[in-house]
């Protein structure tokens, strides 16, 4: 009896599977062209977005675009590493029509696959487009800057007086301010984010960027000629880092401090200063935001041409796939979408208002809704930016991130850090660009 039951079950389950398989066949759309690439006729294109926080807004924008132009833009995101994800798209010969990548990827991916956008109207409207071999390949989505975030409300709450970021010119000023805050009852007024991208790609990176000729300096590092311990910029920035460490709210956890807690402390005003940038805005908003939060240059006891300037520039670049896998019509449709993103009212509102990003386009006068972005915009308009250096080797941030973490956790001395950085560069093959 038991056996026949089992047989009935088997027959039932099998027939169910068959039915499902047929449904799957019918509803699955089959294997059309085998990819997410466009339709080929320029009526339907794909876009890869690597900023997860604006994914939903981007999908909404795509709907607006379809209503206006009839061109369908499908917006994708992946939790896998961007380079790994795009590698699989190219391996299956079905790349996205428009791809959002970091600036340095434009010099590799964009150079190999990007379509030339030199004749597009938006090119004249921005100072941040990326060109390789006289071809414009990279479309900047926004401007991102790095510096010290400060929470005005927290400082005012502790000291009872308005905070003027312009009063902090040198490290000594900064330290005096921290001492004042401690005296007023704020135990630990600073915080440091622990991830390698923040410590190495954002903080350490300033050592290369804040000088006359970053390229020459990096070349001297490759050759093993640079001596960081006698370098004024390196020491000035590390002196500041030491002060940030001294007043660090998350001192015990060091590089293991959780990003969420660091962001929450800044958002709710539990501390006053944190090294970071304007992209953290969306994150700050998820807590009980008590601001405004602004951004100021990293204070250093070294007066030079870079004092009073933020480090940053264009970020999150789009390139249009110009390879054989994307039809001419789709390429044109992709370029048209970018043009629309830069010049239409909807596109401008999307960037500055909906997403709270700082627009890299001069014609965009829509006010930025991001408190940090507003401050960044002032620096941009006043021309007080130190440009990014975009030619780091791919393993730079993770390998030197490890060294910076050690320094943050007092697991190595400054001499050891300097030596580790020099050794890294000297043993690395120079990046061609």
């Amino acid at each position: 009896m038991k056996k026949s039951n089992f047989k009935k079950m088997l027959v039932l389950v099998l027939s169910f599977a068959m039915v499902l398989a047929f449904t799957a066949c019918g509803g699955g759309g089959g294997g059309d062209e085998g990819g997410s690439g466009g339709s080929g006729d320029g009526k339907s294109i794909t876009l890869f977005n690597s900023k997860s926080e604006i994914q939903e807004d981007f999908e909404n924008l795509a709907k607006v675009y379809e209503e206006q132009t009839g061109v369908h833009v499908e917006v994708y995101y992946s939790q896998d590493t961007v380079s790994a994800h795009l590698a699989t798209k190219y391996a299956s010969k079905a790349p996205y029509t428009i791809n959002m990548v970091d600036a340095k990827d434009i010099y590799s991916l964009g150079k190999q696959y990007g379509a030339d956008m030199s004749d597009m109207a938006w090119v004249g409207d921005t100072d941040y487009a990326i060109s390789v071999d006289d071809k414009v390949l990279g479309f900047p989505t926004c401007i991102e800057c790095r510096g010290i975030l400060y929470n005005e409300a927290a400082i005012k709450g502790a000291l009872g007086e308005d905070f003027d970021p312009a009063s902090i010119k040198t490290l000594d000023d900064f330290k005096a301010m921290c001492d004042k805050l401690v005296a007023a009852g704020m135990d630990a007024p600073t915080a440091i984010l622990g991830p390698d991208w923040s410590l190495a790609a954002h903080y350490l990176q300033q050592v290369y960027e804040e000088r006359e000729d970053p390229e020459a300096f990096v070349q001297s590092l490759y050759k093993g000629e640079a001596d960081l311990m006698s370098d004024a910029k390196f020491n000035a920035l590390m002196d500041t880092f030491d002060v940030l460490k001294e007043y660090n709210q998350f001192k015990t956890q060091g590089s293991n401090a959780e990003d969420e807690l660091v962001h929450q402390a800044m958002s709710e005003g539990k501390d006053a200063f944190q090294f970071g940038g304007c992209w953290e805005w969306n994150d700050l908003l998820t807590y009980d935001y008590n601001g405004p939060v602004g951004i100021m240059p990293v204070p250093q006891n070294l007066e030079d041409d870079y004092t009073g300037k933020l480090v940053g520039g264009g970020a999150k670049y789009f390139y249009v796939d110009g390879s054989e896998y994307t039809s001419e019509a789709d390429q044109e449709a992709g370029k048209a979408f970018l043009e629309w993103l830069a010049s239409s009212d909807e596109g401008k509102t999307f960037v500055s208002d909906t997403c709270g990003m700082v627009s890299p386009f001069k014609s965009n006068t829509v006010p930025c809704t991001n408190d940090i972005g507003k401050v960044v915009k002032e620096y941009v308009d006043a021309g007080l930016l130190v440009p990014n250096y975009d030619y780091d080797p791919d393993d730079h941030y993770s390998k030197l991130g490890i060294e910076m973490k050690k320094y943050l956790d007092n697991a190595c001395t400054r001499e050891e850090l300097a030596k580790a950085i020099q050794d890294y560069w000297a043993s690395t093959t120079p990046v061609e660009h």
Partner: protein
Amino acid sequence: MKRNTLSYKVKQYLMFGGVGTALFCAVVIVPFIYGIYLTFTSWDGVSPNKPFVGIANYVAAFADHDYWLAMGRTVIYSVFSVVLINVLAFALAYLVTSGVKGQNFFRAGFFIPNLIGGIVLGYVWKFVFNRAFVAIGTAIAGHDVPSLLASPNGAMFCLILASVWQYAGYMMLIYVAGFMSVSDSLKEAAMIDGCTPSQAMRNVTIPLMRSSFVQCIFLSITRCFVVYDVNLSLTKGDPYGQSIMAAMHVYNTAFTYKNYGMGQAEALILFIVCAVIGITQVMVGKKGEVEA
């Protein structure tokens, strides 16, 4: 009917094993062979050109100090995890088949960790180690204490604990099936013959469950050797890259550092090491298997 001719055997094989073997070859073997070819190129993963470089990637892989460090770490991690997973899984399986009240309920509970995967698992454990343990430690010590995840040994301990927690319930399933398939009449017969329960366990049940042991140990070795998800979501290689396991190193080399050919070569070496250990274990284990 001639049962021993080659054509009869091939026909039999194709009838029963044809579909399975074909799918297996198509999905695993073909890409794997193509992957081996890629180890002889200096491909970056996306470029249309795949320059042939001979064995340069293997030379580089053997000289890659970080890779061998990661491999050493993986071995240590695997030894601890495999032993603990199997001891715990066997004990759990024994407890939940011994006829205690609510054993189905317990089985479901031990199985639950398998339903939480990837980033949530990492997030939950990270919270446990970084916040709950720290809060308890701080209360005991009277001052702030650093998290276990902040020291290399601590991070390793956390990884092992999370893995044991995740896989013990999974392996328990296989041991439970093993316990259930040893017929009660055999056990009863042994008891009638004068065996104590523990003797019956040692002399009847365990030998008959040999295939379960072989399977569980093999599965846990292979899972541990190629651990990636938990590694990524729980430690990301921190502190100071000292919890980077071999699979994570391979992934970084191939995709983050865009050195696809070399990453693939390192993965192949990892595969060979793991395959040798795993297959030896299975062959030794299978030899002593009791046939029904």
